[in-house]
Every structure is written in C-alpha cells, then in structure tokens.
C-alpha cells in the first residue's frame, strides 16, 4: 500500500444515504479528505483534497476529473502519513523531473492555487500546504465560524 494525494470533485447530495464525499471514495476504501463545509452545510469548494491509500491507482488515474497533485512523483515506499510528510518536506520542486513538474504546475493552475512564490527550492510540502490553504480560504467555518 502506498499514498497519493489527489484533488477530486465531490459527489453526493448531502443526505444520509448519499452524503457529500470525495469522488476518490467511489474508487477506494481508504481515503482521508480535507473537506471544508459552508456554515449552511454544503461543501465550501467544488473540489477537495484526498489522500488515497492503495496498491493500484489505475482507477482514479483513469478519471479525468481527479488529478494526482504530484503527478506520480511519490514513491511506492510512502505508505504512512509520517512517510509522506517526511518525503514532501525533503523533496523540492527542483528535485522533480521537468515533465512531472510541468504536470504539477498545470494542476495548481487548474485549481487556481497561487504559486507565484513557489520556486525551485520550495519543498513539495509547502505546495501541499498551499493547496490546503486555498481550501481554507473558502471555508467559512475556519476560525470556528467567526467572520473575518
């Protein structure tokens, strides 16, 4: 089993039998999501960040609506949250081969993740944090519902 990080649309309608969930959940039984909600209940963003644990990512990779944030750059040896954090902290953007780097850039641009300050020396962990902060900015519960 190894971990990969995807940006996926959500599915469902928010009812008990059809809860809002990441599209990744329709492919895999081991998925953890960063999934903020609006104060009135629906998802705060049209996409969510999903960490998938699997031996085979072909199903989600075949879905054009789900994007592998790191374009396959995570090695199969990354199979715990500690592994992924350690790996992403140690690996910089410049360490990623050019084709994968271009793919990562395309994903960030697709989801309007600001990357103007992301440079070659930027650790991939900070890229992950930037994606999360992009979601947080849409989360009107962040700060425990206290309006900015």
């Amino acid at each position: 089993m190894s971990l990969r990080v995807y940006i996926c649309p959500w599915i469902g309608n928010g009812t008990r039998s059809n809860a809002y969930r990441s599209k990744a959940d329709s492919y895999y039984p081991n998925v953890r999501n960063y999934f903020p909600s609006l104060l009135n209940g629906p998802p705060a963003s049209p996409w969510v960040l999903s960490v998938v644990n699997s031996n085979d990512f072909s199903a989600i990779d075949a879905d054009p609506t789900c994007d592998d944030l790191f374009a396959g750059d995570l090695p199969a040896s990354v199979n715990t949250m500690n592994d992924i954090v350690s790996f992403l902290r140690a690996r910089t953007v410049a360490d990623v081969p050019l084709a994968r780097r271009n793919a990562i850039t395309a994903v960030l641009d697709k989801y309007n993740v600001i990357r103007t300050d992301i440079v070659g020396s930027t650790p991939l962990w900070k890229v992950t944090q930037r994606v999360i902060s992009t979601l947080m900015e849409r989360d009107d519960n962040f700060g425990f519902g206290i309006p900015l």
Partner: protein
Amino acid sequence: MPAINDPFNRSNEFPLLPPWLLWVGDAVDLVANEIVKSTGTADTFWYYNDTFSADQYAQAIEASAVTNHDWGPSVRVGGAGHSNIGEGYWLSSNAAGTGAILNKEVNGSFTQLASNSWGTYALGDTLRIEAQGTTIRALRNGTQYSTVTDASLSGGFPGLFWFEPSGSVDNWEGGDLVAAPAVARGFSPRRMPLGA
C-alpha cells in the same frame, strides 16, 4: 470534566432520561440495560448534558445489530450556535462491516470525511471518536484508523448518532480529552529559521 461512563444498567426509560437529551431526531429508549431506537428513520443525535471542553471523546459498542451499522458515538453535538437541524461528528462502521466511516453533519448536510479498511467489524467492538482542536480521530478497540482535519464544528457535547430503527447500543463513555503533558521546564524546542 471527568469521563462519564454510562453502561445503562438501570430501570427502563421511555425515552432515555436526563442528563441524556435529544438534540434532533427520534426517541431512543433504555430497555433491558441497553438503549434502542425502535421507531423512526430521522437523523438522530442524543447528547450527554454536562460541562465538557471542546476537546472531547465519545465511545460505545453496538450490542445487537443496527441495520447497516448506521449509528455511532459522536462529539461536538448540539450546544450554543449549533443548528437544530443536526450537527456533529461521528464514527460508524460501513454497511458491510469492513471499514470505518468518519462523518460530519453540518446544518443537516452529511459529509464523509474519511473511510478506512479495518477488517471485520464485530458486535461489541468499541468505536471511539475524538475531537481535539481541528483534528478528528477514529478508533476501534484502541487502534487509530483515521485522522482528518476539519474546522466545521468547534464545540458541543459528546453523544450518539443513530439512524436506522434497529439493534441496540451499550457501554457509552464520553469526556474531555486529557491535555498533552506539559513541556518540562528547561526544555528548548528546536528552532528553525523561517523558510527552512
């Protein structure tokens, strides 16, 4: 607040009596030292009405089969500012009994925060959910299966979620999470320059 342990070993109650309170949904009853939801298919939250910190946990067991295992110990139920349509986090088994589902309900809308394989679920397994800041954890029999970050619900009470009118639940416990040990005096955390 010290941990509250309620094994429901007392006379029958129709419905469950205070300090248990209904936040939203159907009645649950105490019958033969277990609690049951006999009727109704409303999304149902009950909570233990006492003083709890926002960092809290709840745990319980499924004593006899609830259809689709659609129940779970819940945290941050009710409380000031919460929608009375239904709000809380809870942990349940999936319908097949093969994995954990970590859920939240915000203003009546359900969101699946995490799913995790955990092998075969058995009646009597202790399901436990913890909320600490924006960290929500799912545990079965003391083993942690999922951790997610979510900021939707900040306070409330430990309790129970229940959907399907079937089965029984027992051995509920809830309380404050014990704070992390204080850092020893003289300890200097590692300092790194910004950007390192």
